[in-house]
């Protein structure tokens, strides 16, 4: 595999994926392998980690984990603390990896990495099969509605590349995943260490007829991952040049959160409910006839009503829900527990509001998926279903329908820290 050349680089698309795995399941080795085999590790990076490997552990083999563990504390303790972003490209695609630590105390980091991902790679040790951590990683991937999940059954070399063992684990995983809402699940037997089925097809597993991991990543269909049905345009910024050339220009700048907007479309403005038409869709490079998610554009309307940041332009015949009472699955990230009846700042698309926690419906045991209806003590890394009431109505869709108009964050008003990630039900 060679890096992309100039001539074929212009029509590549972008896949964002997250990797979840626990200590010692070979996650860093797998990422190192993908970067190395796609020639994305450079000589000076290699030399730097060779030096560091020798210094820290006196290890004989180069420790590829040192490539992803960027902070001093991480290298010293040999653990991954935070989400790290890695980049590589093949002639077909550019990839962004959100590499997240797998331990339970870092659930919030996993949620963060998963929030922007099209695909999740979940590593399973072939010797151990489905363990508690696998359940947790799968649950988070399904909760965050990552469209594609790839289970990599790793360390196949340590189970003699056994088809039987692979099928056994696959059945276990399929049974577990039937409890989750995931559309696209795949299973690949690999050895990250030896390179089997990562980039190159394994010669040791003739019984496996499927694609290698890299082929899967390069070819999986992702253009359907955005919502192109429900037109949603949260107004982010109002552009008013007030120059002679553009004296009367008043444009609403934002990033399309869903659907396809066309010039001439009848649209409704929220919250006022006024109806008008799209006069033009503007960019620096000229006017467009249509624009779709996730494009950043500036929309001009035929009539100018009062419309500002936090408002939304939608299609008249397809409108979001409008309410002050919101039900959500909430991943708690704050150091102090969620306060029942507590007040928090809430951010939803470009809108800022405040909210009060009306009820904690239940807490989820993220290892067994059991609902704990009597446990209202929501600590950092817990996931719960809660009901909140906002100071002003939000215009939202269910998270399962639209990841942008269906997500919120909660902020502690005293510390300004982001303490909760909510997915609207």
């Amino acid at each position, binding site marked *: 595999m060679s890096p*992309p*050349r*100039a001539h074929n*680089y212009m*029509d*590549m*698309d*972008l896949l964002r994926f997250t990797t979840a795995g626990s200590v010692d399941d070979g996650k860093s080795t797998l990422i190192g392998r993908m970067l190395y085999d796609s020639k994305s590790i*450079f*000589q000076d*990076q290699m030399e*730097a980690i060779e030096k*560091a490997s020798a210094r820290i552990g006196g290890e004989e083999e180069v420790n590829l984990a040192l490539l*992803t563990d*960027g*902070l001093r*504390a991480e290298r010293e303790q040999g653990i991954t603390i*935070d989400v*790290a*972003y*890695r*980049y590589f*490209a093949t002639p077909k695609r*550019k990839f962004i990896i959100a590499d997240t630590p797998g331990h339970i105390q870092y659930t*919030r980091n996993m949620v*963060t990495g998963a929030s922007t991902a099209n695909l999740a790679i979940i590593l399973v040790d072939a010797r151990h099969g489905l363990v508690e951590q696998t359940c947790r990683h799968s649950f988070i991937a399904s909760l965050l509605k990552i469209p594609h999940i790839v289970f990599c059954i790793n360390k196949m070399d340590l189970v003699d590349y056994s088809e039987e063992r692979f099928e056994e684990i696959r059945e276990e995983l399929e049974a577990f995943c039937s409890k989750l809402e995931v559309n696209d699940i795949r299973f690949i037997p690999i050895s990250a260490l030896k390179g089997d089925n990562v980039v190159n097809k394994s010669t040791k597993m003739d019984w496996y007829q499927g694609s290698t991991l890299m082929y899967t990543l390069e070819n999986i269909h*992702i*253009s359907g991952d*955005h919502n*192109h049905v429900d037109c949603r345009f949260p107004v*982010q*910024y109002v*552009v008013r*040049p007030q*120059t002679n*050339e553009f004296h009367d*220009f008043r444009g609403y*700048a*934002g*990033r399309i959160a869903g659907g*396809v907007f066309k010039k001439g479309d009848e649209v409704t403005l929220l919250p006022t409910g006024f109806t008008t038409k799209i006069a033009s869709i503007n960019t*620096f*490079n000229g006017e467009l006839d249509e624009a*779709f998610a*996730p*494009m*950043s554009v500036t929309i001009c309307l035929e009539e100018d009503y009062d419309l500002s*940041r936090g408002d939304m332009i939608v299609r008249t015949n397809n409108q979001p829900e409008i309410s002050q009472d919101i039900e959500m699955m909430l991943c708690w*990230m704050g150091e102090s527990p969620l306060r029942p009846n507590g007040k928090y*700042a809430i*951010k939803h698309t*470009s809108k800022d509001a405040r909210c009060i926690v009306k009820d904690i419906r239940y807490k989820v045991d993220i290892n067994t998926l059991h609902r704990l209806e009597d446990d209202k003590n929501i600590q950092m890394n817990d996931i719960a279903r809660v009901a909140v009431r906002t100071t002003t109505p939000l215009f939202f869709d269910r998270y399962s329908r639209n*990841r*942008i108009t269906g*997500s919120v*964050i909660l*902020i502690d008003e005293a510390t300004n*820290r*982001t303490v909760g*990630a909510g997915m609207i039900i």
Partner: protein
Amino acid sequence: MQSYSLTHLKELESESIFVLREVASQFENPVMLFSGGKDSIVMFHLARKAFWPAKVPFPLLHVDTGHNFPETIEFRDKLVAETGVQLIVGSVQDSIDKGLVVEEKGYNASRNALQTATLLESLEQGKFDAAMGGGRRDEEKARAKERFFSHRDEFGQWDPKNQRPELWNIFNGRKLMGEHFRVFPISNWTEMDIWQYILHEKIEIPSIYFSHTRKVFERDGSLLAECDYIQRRDNEIVEEQVVRFRTIGDMTCTGAVLSNADTLEKIIEEVSASRVTERGARSDDKRSEAAMEDRKKQGYF
């Protein structure tokens, strides 16, 4: 049905424009750091797109070490004249003259570390509450952990172990008095993306990125440009070579590479075949394993 998909460059562009508009919306007095290098040039180009047809609603801040390549300053001044953007210059020489910092001495003396004091002073003077930088996560491993919206305390410090989680595209720019944010709109771009975008958008860049003849000498495996700011050892011999620069920093710490790439297409071919990262020629990063993390904690770019 038509397939609605974007190329990766269009998707990156859209994401960066979104971040730039968030900055203009969430902060009262933002500023864009501008070094004259390709990353800050692309970031400024994206800002022009984000607010078009209005002007970019914030000024540029250049932290001037006094050790710049003359070509960089020439380019900066031309860009300012052509676009009408406001430029603020923070001078490291002024900081030295005021006794705020002390100049390093010796053969490897560099003003790189001194920039942090000048930067923080300029931010304070201008009462800026957000400073946008052209840092990319693929550049360096400490930067791989950086957020788009990166919170700084009242001393300008970065606390990498205690960062705010950043979910979806919802950015939390709330802060207390005296604190500020560093924002990195092109976090997700790689060196290759930047070059492809420059080619695609026909963006002008300083001439020293292209192959040219220059007097250089070798030190610790790097080719440094001969100039008044570097003290040479007796055994360091100046030779004329055909070179170009992959990054633009101070003349004292930015190494050249031997190259015949005199067009963008040739540069892209060279970058895609290269086995050394662009910062491989930067001696400021080589000082220790955690050189970048340490500088960033203190408030570096």
